[in-house]
């Protein structure tokens, strides 16, 4: 749109327009104090306590003694739990790949072919993301219900299976993937494609060698952006698998709701974050590359 183009040219003009100045108004550092204090008490505090709990020993019902007891972590090695960890990571990977397969062509279409309706399409992508996650999962459950039309007339009876969970993951996280992918496609210089085809490249070759290469960092960023929360997913398996195909998040929740085993739940939480940290590091790597590369 006109607006987007205008800001693009402004961004190009930035270095030239900026001159050296001694003036740098700064706001006092104490303005960070309230939020710093807040994070320290209500985020870092609970996190530290979580670590302490994971190393504590459960003594009967509801009482525990702090220490350095790694038996809870050993318990995770049990095949019952390694299965759930593996399932969570596999499902999140499948969900992310499906999201790419569904979302990339849409983002491509928006960036390449839309002009007047680009903002409208963008809004259509954003609206589902901001409407309640829970309501959307419920809406999906209605459609997939074994007594509903899809099951009766199309033979698609997948509610309470892993397929429903996969559909739910794609359905809920699609907008989150499309937005950054669209942003990186939007920065693409389409004249490069024109030049390549003028020089005799077939459209598919031009796409593979130019578009895909230039937008890959954006795609990876977007994929990890959905993969990371998918691994911590709680609502989708809870509703769409009816408790039959649980993720690590559900098992963590059970330790606090039903099993009353907070130390084990804490150890599972730490293990989940450990598994995730690898992907977070990859995400940060690509996100910073994307930033240097783009704009």
């Amino acid at each position, binding site marked *: 749109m006109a607006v987007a183009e205008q*800001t693009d040219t*402004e961004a190009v003009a*930035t270095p030239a*327009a900026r001159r050296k100045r001694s*003036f740098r*108004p*700064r*706001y006092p*550092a104490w*303005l960070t104090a*309230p*939020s*710093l204090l*807040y*994070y320290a008490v*209500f*985020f870092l505090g609970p*996190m530290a*306590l*979580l670590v302490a709990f994971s190393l504590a020993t459960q003594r009967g019902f509801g009482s525990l003694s702090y220490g350095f007891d790694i038996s809870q972590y050993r318990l995770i090695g049990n095949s019952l739990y390694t299965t759930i960890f593996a399932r969570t990571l596999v499902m999140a990977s499948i969900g992310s790949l499906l999201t790419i397969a*569904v979302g990339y*062509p*849409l983002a491509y*279409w928006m960036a*390449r*072919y839309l002009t007047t309706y680009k903002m409208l399409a963008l*809004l*259509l992508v*954003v*609206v589902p*993301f*901001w*409407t*309640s*996650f*829970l*309501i*959307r999962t419920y*809406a*999906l459950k209605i459609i997939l*219900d074994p007594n*509903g*039309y899809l099951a*009766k007339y199309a033979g698609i009876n997948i509610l309470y299976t892993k397929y429903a969970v996969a559909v739910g993951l794609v*359905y809920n996280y699609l907008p989150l993937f499309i*937005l950054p992918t669209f*942003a990186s496609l939007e920065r693409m210089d389409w004249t490069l494609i024109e030049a390549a085809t003028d020089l005799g490249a077939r459209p598919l070759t031009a796409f593979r060698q130019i578009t895909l290469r230039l937008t890959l960092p954006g795609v990876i960023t977007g994929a990890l952006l959905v993969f990371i929360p998918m*691994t*911590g997913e709680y609502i989708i398996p*809870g*509703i769409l698998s*009816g408790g039959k195909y649980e993720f690590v*998040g559900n098992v*963590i*929740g059970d330790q606090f709701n039903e099993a009353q085993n*907070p130390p084990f739940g*804490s150890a599972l*939480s730490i293990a989940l974050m450990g598994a995730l940290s690898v992907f*977070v590091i990859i995400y*940060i790597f690509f996100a910073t590359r994307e930033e240097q590369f783009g704009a």
Partner: protein
Amino acid sequence: MPKRLSAKQGFTAWALVVFAFLYLPILVMAIFAFNKPSATSVAAFHGANICDIPPTQVGNITVWNGFTSCWFSAGLHDPTYIPAIVTSLQIAAVAAIIATVLGLGAALALARMKPRFRAPFDAVVYLTLVVPEIVIAVASLIFFVQARNYFHAFPALGKSTILLAQVVFNASVAMLIIRARFVGMGDTLEEAAYDLGSGPLATFRQVTLPRLMPAIVAAALLSFTFSFDDYVIPAFVNGTTNTWPIVLYSAVRFGLTPAVNALATIMLTITVLAVIVTAIVLRRSRVQVTPGQEKAPGLDAAIGLR
């Protein structure tokens, strides 16, 4: 006569399929808000109002049984749902205000701080965004229970603990949105104000704050939506308090009537309007960028991507 589709037509067709996938379930849910209970359950029911039929006897409501609009009034008078919605609204309003104030202060100071000092703060902010919500929820539960054990002045599990736990994530998102806008604005106008003899406080009030307003409003609206829709944190730190997502989740798992569809439809409508307002506000903030400065935050900033 079959003709080969051009690439553009192919992509357009795919886009229509994807938008149908995104919107069809929501649309069906909204349509089923007007659905009658199944014929057999209506026949077996002796009351005057068929929307008084309880969830256990409503029959199959995932197929169309006929039109009624009585679920809307049934939903709006429901003794469980309505108080829960009011609770959620209260928590979300306070959470939005606290998160925006915290985020604003941090954004102002951090934006022009040396990277060396800023980095640790940023690390914590990103950590609050990537730690799975379920982990934050159970960690907060442990923390609040312990805090209550040791300090009796600390609030028991309930509205205030939901609020305290939710503000962590919301403050981070608010800070990122406001900071993106603040960095994007540049400091030329502030410099001009200083040159013309305006003091720091007057400059902030008359120059910086009005230009930050779109981002502040957007941050508050988004924080509100987040908090209102959040299920996972309240599910663990609620004590005996019911929020709307909590009653919705248990209804979805253990049985409901189309009254839930009716309430969800009302709320969807409100959310959609809020999103459109936010988009318009953000777009306005985009247009107002001073020439020669960095890009203003777009919709990507709106969802906390930057």
